[in-house]
């Protein structure tokens, strides 16, 4: 996924709530959906999108008393910075694990490329 798509994903209403909800502890999709008022299907879809982008990881698989297995997700994103200066957009991400773009400023595009 391209960096600009990543920054757009971050400012998606549901994605932002999911990332905030999974910062501290691993949470289940059902739990996030209930507590943060996200429709369950959208919640699954966004979580898969975020997982694909490397923002979320399934930290644990638990079995409920009813015998159903449930995945718990945790956020891998520590911080994200988007800066617009002098007509240029730059982003920087920091993750909990080794990732090639960790802590690097990435220039998206400037007015000059228009």
């Amino acid at each position, binding site marked *: 996924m391209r960096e600009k798509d990543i920054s757009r994903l971050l400012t998606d209403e549901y994605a932002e709530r999911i990332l905030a909800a999974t910062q501290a502890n691993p949470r289940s999709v059902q739990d996030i959906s209930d507590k943060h008022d996200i429709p369950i299907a959208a919640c699954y879809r966004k979580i898969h999108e975020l997982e694909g982008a490397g923002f979320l990881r399934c930290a644990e698989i638990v079995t409920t008393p009813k015998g159903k297995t449930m995945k718990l997700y945790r956020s891998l*994103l520590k911080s994200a910075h988007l800066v617009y200066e002098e007509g240029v957009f730059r982003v920087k991400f920091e993750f909990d694990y080794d990732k090639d773009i960790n802590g690097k400023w990435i220039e998206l595009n*400037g007015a000059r490329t228009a």
Partner: protein
Amino acid sequence: MTDILNIPGTHWSLMGFETVENDDTVPPMNDGMNPLQASQLLTDEYSAKILLATYKRRISAQEISQRYGIPIAACYRKIRSLEEAGLIQCVDRILTQKGKRKNLYTSCLRNAYIFFENGRLRARFQLATGAVRDFGGDWNGVDLLKQ
């Protein structure tokens, strides 16, 4: 918004584009936005393109639409929401050769910072007038240049 260009030493502001004079008629910024709405103004594809198109330039909606491949209706709609948010403004209404009025827009946004840290999103906009708008919490003591 399609190319990542990284030309070391090339500074946009040195490339001879006209500068926009500050004036006092900038519309007030919509303070009713939350940090998410504020940051969406920057990460939305069309809005970002419009902000770049109007950076240190006066340009019409029609021209933005053609040059940046934004459907004309969406272009007008986004321009309107950016204008309401105080990020761009109409600086002139010129007459075209056909006698039609055409609004020229220019960006009021100089710098913007959107930070997601500790599960919290916040945004800061610095306008050409020097005014600063913060969304979602405290920016005091944040050294932006060190980031």
